[in-house]
């Protein structure tokens, strides 16, 4: 069974910066999935997923749009671009920039009970 977590709480746990989508940070996600491979992300069937990735390009945000993912955490201090913010805003996607490594990010989220997709 998934345990829900607010997007706001995810940013807090990760000491991370919410870059856009402020009005949706009280929405909850049930699952997390970590990958730099968008082909992988596009095979997910789960809903209310937060995507954790080190891939910062427009296709990450497009992939989230198609896969109904409403929150993306970019790890390792990767910066999102204005084009990414534009597409994210169109689709009510919350983008979060996090300084931690992929491993640490996942560890911290796992510790507070975020559930894997599988």
């Amino acid at each position, binding site marked *: 069974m998934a345990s829900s977590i607010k997007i706001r709480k995810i940013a807090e746990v990760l000491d991370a910066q919410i870059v856009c989508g402020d009005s949706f940070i009280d929405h909850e996600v049930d699952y997390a999935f970590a990958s730099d*491979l*968008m*082909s992988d992300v*596009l095979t997910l069937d789960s809903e209310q997923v937060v995507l954790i990735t080190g891939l910062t390009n427009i*296709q*990450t945000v*497009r992939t989230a749009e*198609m*896969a109904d993912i409403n929150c993306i955490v970019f790890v390792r201090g990767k910066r999102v671009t204005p084009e990414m913010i534009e597409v994210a805003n169109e689709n009510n996607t919350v983008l979060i920039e996090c300084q931690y490594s992929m491993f640490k990010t996942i560890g911290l989220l796992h510790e507070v009970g975020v559930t894997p997709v599988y």
Partner: protein
Amino acid sequence: MEFSYEVEGGNFAKAGNAASGVKKVLKQLNVDPKVIKRIVVALYEGEVNVVAHAYKGKVLVDIDTSRIYIRIEDEGPGIPDIDLAMQVGYSTASAMVREMGFGAGMGLPNMKRNADAIEISSKVGEGTVVELTTKLTS
């Protein structure tokens, strides 16, 4: 309802324009979000394939009350062995495509999984046509 989109080979910045447009239309038609997701994921994979593997292409969309028909056609190298290309993990994607987060050889199988019917025809040295049909009711 019919419309079309142009797809530019190599232009990852624009990949997803067609899928994004179709998603908006299907939302307006109040199609079940689960059905919308299957349709736009398949279309998006198809668009990315044109961007990643072909020179240029076109997406034609035809929606009626019961189903959506999508035709993704491109001018490109074509697919010599379609059965092989349909296998999970088979990919000829370039390093550039992999850097964009694609090229795992999962797109065509994922399109097949998400569409009710898929039809692929290809001529080596000319191009590829992928046709997807999906019912709009779940």
